[in-house]
């Protein structure tokens, strides 16, 4: 509790550091904040050509929205995932990137990883805003779902922050962590139904049947991935325009709280040794 109070006391610093990241990021570029859109758009283009045009992946149309546009369907899952992957990968380097500061000034160290997640979250908010405009143009009545989308964005940010807090410490002691996580993220995006619909996994799982005499199916294991639930919820809200499954939302919320609790615990235990370990 006392720790939370201390973190709360440095919220102004957190806000300032987040602003520093946001303002500094696209300084001296002609397109500025628009660059934040370029990456997901380029990925979208590649995936659309490869998976919708060449491999003919056909996701089910939005129910009840009736949308049937692959790039839009893709973005509804891709944007949350790129936020997650970018904030984990950038956030885990935040203490190392600010080594000079950590070794010279006393302040609540936790603001460094959190401000990174915050600044990437800001970019994500911008991207989601553009996505909502596109959805509206395509005819999905997404406006009433926006408050819930925002709530889910916060929950995903909490989940990412929890992972970042563990990994940022690990990365100070073992610099291998960042390379390892880079590979993990590449695998993770394919282990999550972002580029293909989950129905393909369901079909395979039904074909294989229960594993080794137990009740567990491939799909059950597949669905342990919290990002699968997050993507499902975001697609329900944005693309289908309907309420997500309660189970999915609960799964997301529980993983976020668990990740944050572990993250805070690990970070707090190691925070004091950081200046020496760097």
């Amino acid at each position, binding site marked *: 509790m006392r720790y939370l109070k201390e973190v709360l006391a440095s919220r*102004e*610093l957190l806000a*300032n*550091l987040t*602003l*520093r990241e946001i*303002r*500094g990021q696209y*300084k*001296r570029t002609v397109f500025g904040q628009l660059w934040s859109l370029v990456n997901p758009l380029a990925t979208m283009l590649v995936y659309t050509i490869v998976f919708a045009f060449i491999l003919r992946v056909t996701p089910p149309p939005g129910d009840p929205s009736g949308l049937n546009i692959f790039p839009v369907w893709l973005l509804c899952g891709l944007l949350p995932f790129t936020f997650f992957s970018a904030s984990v990968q950038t956030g885990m380097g935040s203490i190392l990137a*600010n080594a*000079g*500061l*950590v*070794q*010279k*000034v*006393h*302040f609540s160290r936790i603001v460094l990883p959190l401000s990174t997640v915050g600044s990437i979250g800001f970019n994500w908010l911008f991207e989601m805003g553009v996505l909502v405009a596109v959805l509206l143009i395509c005819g999905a009545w997404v406006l009433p779902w926006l408050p819930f989308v925002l709530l889910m964005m916060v929950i995903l940010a909490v989940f990412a922050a929890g992972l970042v807090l563990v990994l940022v410490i690990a990365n100070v*002691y*073992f*610099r*291998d*962590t960042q390379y*390892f996580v880079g590979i993990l993220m590449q695998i993770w995006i394919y282990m999550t139904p972002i580029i293909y619909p989950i129905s393909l996994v369901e079909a395979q799982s039904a074909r294989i049947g229960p594993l080794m005499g137990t009740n567990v199916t491939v799909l059950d294991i597949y669905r342990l991935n919290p990002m699968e639930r997050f993507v499902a919820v975001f697609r329900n809200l944005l693309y289908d325009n309907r309420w997500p499954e309660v189970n999915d939302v609960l799964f997301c919320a529980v993983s976020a709280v668990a990740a944050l609790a572990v993250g805070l615990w690990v970070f707090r235990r190691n925070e*004091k*040794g950081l*200046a*020496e370990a760097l």
Partner: protein
Amino acid sequence: MKVDGLSKSFRLYHERNQSLKSTIMRGRRSVHEDFWALKDISFEVPTGSTFGLIGSNGSGKSTLLKCLAKIYYPEKGTITSRGRLAALLEVGSGFHPELSGRDNVFLNGSILGMSKKEITRKFDEIVDFSGVEQFIDQPVKNYSSGMYVRLGFAIAINVDPDVLVVDEVLAVGDAEFQEKCRLKFVDFKEAGKTVILVSHSMSTVQDMCDHAAWLNHGELVTAGEATPTISAYLDSLSFGGNL
């Protein structure tokens, strides 16, 4: 402020497992020995005094300052201090080169623990003290090194702490700026605030401090009134004492 039985050790690694590979391949923890940078240091800094830490290179002065500034945490012993503590170990750390001087004042101020209101109130004073008014809206990467350091110093000195911990940063800027800093320290003293500083310049210590502590190889040799401590230290040097 009181320091009681303070000890701080660092690990000297002979074989350090800083990659996962080495940890797994060797399958054991790294090999290290402890090096005690500070051994059982106890002294008291009277409130309202200016306190100098002296000693040769590697005697543990900076480590002690970092412990006081809560950057390192000692293995043994306690540090008790009253009031707000600010440390000035390096000026301008945390400046973002692409941001303007103005943005950096707010950013750096909040890193040092000032609230936005406080910074806004002191903004003019900070800019005035640093002498970079004309360039305050320019990105700090275009500053000369002197301007950079002066702005950093101006922010830090305006944190207005009860205890200020300073490491060898007084030698910044030109003669005029140094004089400004000296006056600021006099103000500090008159306001009843405690200053703890490290310096290799005995004339500075003699000039500014009323109390001093002499460290040698991590151990406290003596602490007390400035003049006798300094002369004892100087004597040990000129008579070929333990360098």
